C-alpha cells in the first residue's frame, strides 16, 4: 500500500482547469519530486492534497484512508504536513514558540512540546536563532522555521513547497544537508522545487506537471531523457536554470 495516493484529482477555477485528472503516489521512505513550469498547477495540487482546497473530482488516500473533505489540521494530525511557498512564520513569536505550535500536535504538555521543538530546531540548524522573533529572521531562517514547524508535527509525509527558492547557493547546500537528515529520520517527502540540480539529486522519483496534467513520471534520469518533458518544459528551462540557478 502506498503511503499517499491520489487518483484522477481535478480542480477547476471558473473555466480554467488548474489540475486535471492527476494520478500521484508516494511510497514510504521516498523523496518524490514535483516539477513543472510556472502555472503548471503544482501549488494548487499541494493545496488539494493538504486539504486547503477540495478537489472537484478524484480520490486522495493517505495511510489507507480517504482524506477528501478533511480539514488541513486534521490531515496534519494524521501525519501529512505541508510548508508554504510564501513562508508563513508566526511573526510575533520566537522561533521556539513557532515550532512549539507544531509540536503541540503530539505533545499536549508545554514542557514536552518545548523539548520536541528544541530537538527539531537543532535538526534544522536553527539553534543559535531560537530566541529570535519570526519577523526578525532572514529568508533562509524563515525557510528553516517553516520546515521546523512542519517537522515538529512529527509527520510521516511532508510536502515541501519550494523550500530552496530565494536562497543563495551556500544556503541551498545547507538546506540539502538538512533534508538529508530529515530523510535519515524516516520522513517521506514530496518536494516542489525550481532549482533543478536540487530536485534531480534529491528525488527518487519525479512527476512532471504541465497545464495541470501529469505528463511524465519516473526516475530523474528517465525524466531528463523524456522527449515529452524536454519539449514541454525542460528544454529551455533546464538550460536556463543550470546557467543562472543562483539568481532564482
Amino acid at each position, binding site marked *: 500500500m502506498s503511503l499517499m495516493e491520489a487518483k484522477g484529482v481535478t480542480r477547476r477555477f471558473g473555466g480554467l482547469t488548474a489540475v486535471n485528472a492527476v494520478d500521484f503516489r508516494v511510497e514510504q521512505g521516498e523523496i518524490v519530486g514535483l516539477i513543472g513550469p510556472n502555472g503548471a498547477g503544482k501549488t494548487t495540487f499541494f493545496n488539494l492534497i493538504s486539504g*486547503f482546497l477540495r478537489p472537484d473530482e478524484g480520490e486522495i488516500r493517505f495511510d489507507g484512508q480517504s482524506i477528501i473533505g478533511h*480539514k*488541513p489540521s486534521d490531515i496534519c494530525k494524521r501525519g501529512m504536513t505541508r510548508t508554504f511557498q510564501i513562508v*508563513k512564520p508566526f511573526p510575533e*513569536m520566537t522561533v521556539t*514558540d513557532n515550532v*512549539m505550535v507544531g509540536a503541540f*500536535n503530539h505533545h499536549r504538555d508545554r514542557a514536552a512540546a518545548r523539548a520536541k521543538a528544541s530537538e527539531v530546531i537543532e535538526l534544522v540548524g536553527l539553534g543559535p536563532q531560537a530566541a529570535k522573533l519570526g519577523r526578525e529572521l532572514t529568508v533562509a531562517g524563515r525557510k528553516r522555521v517553516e520546515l521546523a*514547524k512542519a517537522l515538529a508535527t512529527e509527520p510521516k509525509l511532508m510536502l515541501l513547497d519550494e523550500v530552496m527558492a530565494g536562497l543563495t547557493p551556500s544556503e541551498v547546500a545547507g538546506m540539502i544537508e538538512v533534508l538529508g537528515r530529515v530523510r535519515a529520520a524516516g520522513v517521506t517527502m514530496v518536494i516542489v522545487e525550481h532549482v533543478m540540480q536540487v530536485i534531480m539529486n534529491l528525488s527518487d522519483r519525479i512527476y512532471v506537471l504541465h497545464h495541470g496534467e501529469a505528463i511524465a513520471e519516473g526516475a530523474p534520469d528517465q525524466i531528463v531523457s523524456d522527449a515529452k518533458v524536454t519539449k514541454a518544459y525542460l528544454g529551455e528551462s533546464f538550460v536556463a536554470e543550470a546557467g543562472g540557478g543562483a539568481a532564482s
Partner: protein
Amino acid sequence: MAALRANWFYLAVLIGLLILPAYAESEFVTAVMPRGLSGSALLHIFVLIFFFAFMSQAWNIIGGFAGQLSIGHAAFFGIGAYVSTICYVHLGLTPWLGMFVAAVFTALVGAGLGLISFHYGLKGPFFALVTVAFAEITRLILLHWEFVGAANGILLPFSPNPTFWEFQFTSKEPYYYIALAMMLASIALVAWIARSRFGYYLHAIRQDEDAAEAVGVPTKRCKVQAIALSAALAGLGGTFYAQYTQYIVPDDMVVGRVSVEILLGAVIGGAGTVMGPIVGAFILIPVGEATRVIFEGGGTGTSLSTLIAADMSFGDKFVAYLDYLAAGGGGGLAIILYGCLLMVVVLGMPGGVLPWLAGLRARARRRAEASA
C-alpha cells in the same frame, strides 16, 4: 530581570489594593484625593477599574489572543445581566448561582455566533460587522420584549437589609472585593491560557490562520472555544453590573459605546497580552473619572436650544456659548479623551502600551550592549 521586577511591582499593587478599603476614609487618602472625592467614591472608581479590566480581559481572549475583532461584546454583557436578573426576579435564584447560569447561556450564544461566523469563513472586518449587527439585534429584541421590561428595563428588587445570598450590599466594600476577585481570577485564567497549548494555538491563529491550520491547529474549533469562553466571562460581568447598579436597561448596556469601551482597555494596554487589559483599565478609568470630576462639575444651566432661540446678537450668543463650553458643554469630555487615546495608541504604539514599553526596554538594552 525585568520580568522579576514587574512581578514585584504587581505584587505591591495587589497588596495595596487588598488593604485600600480599610484606609479609604483615612486622613492620608482624603488629603491626596482630588477635591470632593469621598472614600466611597474612591472605592466606586476602583470597582469601575476592576470591572472594566475584567470585561476587557474577557474580550482579550477572542479579540486579543485569537485576533478576531469583536465590536459587539456589549451583547454578551447585556444578555448575562438579563439572564441572572430574570433568574433572580422570576425564579428567586440567587445571583451567585444566576451568574453561572448567565455564563453558560452567554457561552452558548457566543459559541452559536462563532460557529455560524467561522463556519462561513468570516474574517477580519466581516466578523467585526457581524458582531456589531448581532449586538444591535440583541438590543432591539431586549428593547421590545415586554417580559424583560422592554425599554424600561428591570429594576432589581431592593432589600433594605440585604443578605449575602441576595448579592446586594449596603456599602461599597463587598462590591470592591468581589470585583477585585473577578479581575484577579480573569488574570489567572488568561495567564494560564497564555502558557497552555490553547493559548499558543490562539496566538498562531491571530498571526496566520493558514499557517496555523497547516501545522495541525484546529482553527475553527479554537476560535469557537475562544468566543464561548470570552462570552461566558462577559456574561459574568453582566451579572455583577446588574447587582452593582441594581438597574438594567438595554439602551445603557447593549450599545456600541459599551462594546467599544470593553475592547478599549485591552487595545490600549496591549491586546493579546495577559496584563494589557488590566493596565488599560487602570489608565482609562482614572483618566475618564478625573475628566468628569474636573470638567463636568456644574454646567451653566442653560440648554443649547434656549441659547439658539435667545433674543441676543450673534456676538453675545457666541460669548454665552463659550461660557457654556467652559462649564463642560454637553458633557462627553471623557469619551473624547478615550477616542483620542485609542487613535494615539493605534497610530503610535499599535500593539498597545505594554508591548510598546517592552520594545523600548529591548531597544535600550540593545543600545547598552552595543556601547559596552
